[in-house]
């Protein structure tokens, strides 16, 4: 399916990622180097170690202490977190940290797979292009405007929780 920028953003909106920036890209089918998997494994660890500059996003990920330490030390990726390429390797993406981002496996990474698969027969595709190393949807990262201005009780509770207040 050939999308344009508006339809791509609309599709991402229906998949719950209305704040995900996109880039237009013409896939260049490319073969992988024989040692790509070894390099990929090393790069994943390097990427994890580089996440210390994303403390704000990590704080919103609601991880246990063990998961947090494993992530920070670059030891292992906690469950339900995925490392994705902005430009997939098979479409000419490079094995570089700049080409990677971290997101939740479900629902984000799974829905991004669906978003890309939908465009698999198109000449130009729209790929997710998060500006930071960690992508969290606004729905995950915050509770809306909060207080009396919140649109529903859940948003209000989330805001109260985030700002360290009680729910009374």
């Amino acid at each position, binding site marked *: 399916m050939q999308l344009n920028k508006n339809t791509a953003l609309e599709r991402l909106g229906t998949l719950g990622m209305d704040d995900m920036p996109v880039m237009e890209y013409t896939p260049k089918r490319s073969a992988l180097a024989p040692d790509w998997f070894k390099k*990929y*494994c090393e790069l*994943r660890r390097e990427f994890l170690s580089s996440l210390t500059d994303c403390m704000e996003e990590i704080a919103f990920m*609601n991880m246990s202490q063990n998961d947090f330490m494993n992530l920070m030390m670059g030891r*292992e*990726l*906690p*469950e*339900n*977190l*995925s*490392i*994705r390429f902005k430009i*997939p390797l*098979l*479409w000419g993406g490079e094995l570089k940290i700049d080409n990677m981002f971290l997101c*939740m*496996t*479900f*629902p984000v*990474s*799974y829905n991004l*797979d*669906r978003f*890309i*698969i939908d465009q*698999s*027969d198109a000449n130009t595709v729209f790929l997710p292009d998060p500006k930071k190393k960690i992508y969290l949807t606004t729905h995950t990262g915050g509770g809306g405007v909060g207080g009396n201005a919140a649109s529903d009780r859940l948003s209000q509770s989330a805001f109260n929780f985030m700002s360290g207040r009680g729910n009374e």
Partner: protein
Amino acid sequence: MTTTEFLSLIKSRGATIFPVAQNVNLSIVNTNLQNMRVAILQPFMIDLYNNCSGITLGSACIFGPSEIDRGIKYPLPSLEKINHDMTGNKNLFGKTVFGRNDLFWFAFDVNGTCFMLDNLTLSVLRKYDDPYRAMIDCLIVGKI
């Protein structure tokens, strides 16, 4: 390899194996899969679902017959939900997706053959006659 040996092996690698769901009727799952024009559950999947209701290892997973609640983590969708989401994809015609990781998707067909699919176009990258080999390849990438 038997299902028990597979589960034992994958558990020793750190996988989380979710207990069998009590209220799931596999015949209904099969009927729903048939309605989606995808492959019905093969004997190895039925055997697996008689021993567990899904497996995760890092970011890799084998979907279960029902949604799995994981506490504060987002629930693991059911096999039916995944295949319903993918309905209409021509590369998946006759195949049922049963697992995924950060790099590949995995599916089986009506003959019990398993496939490794790329996560961009869902085209076949590899065929497996041994379904346990496919499930191991699916899960092991979750913890690299």
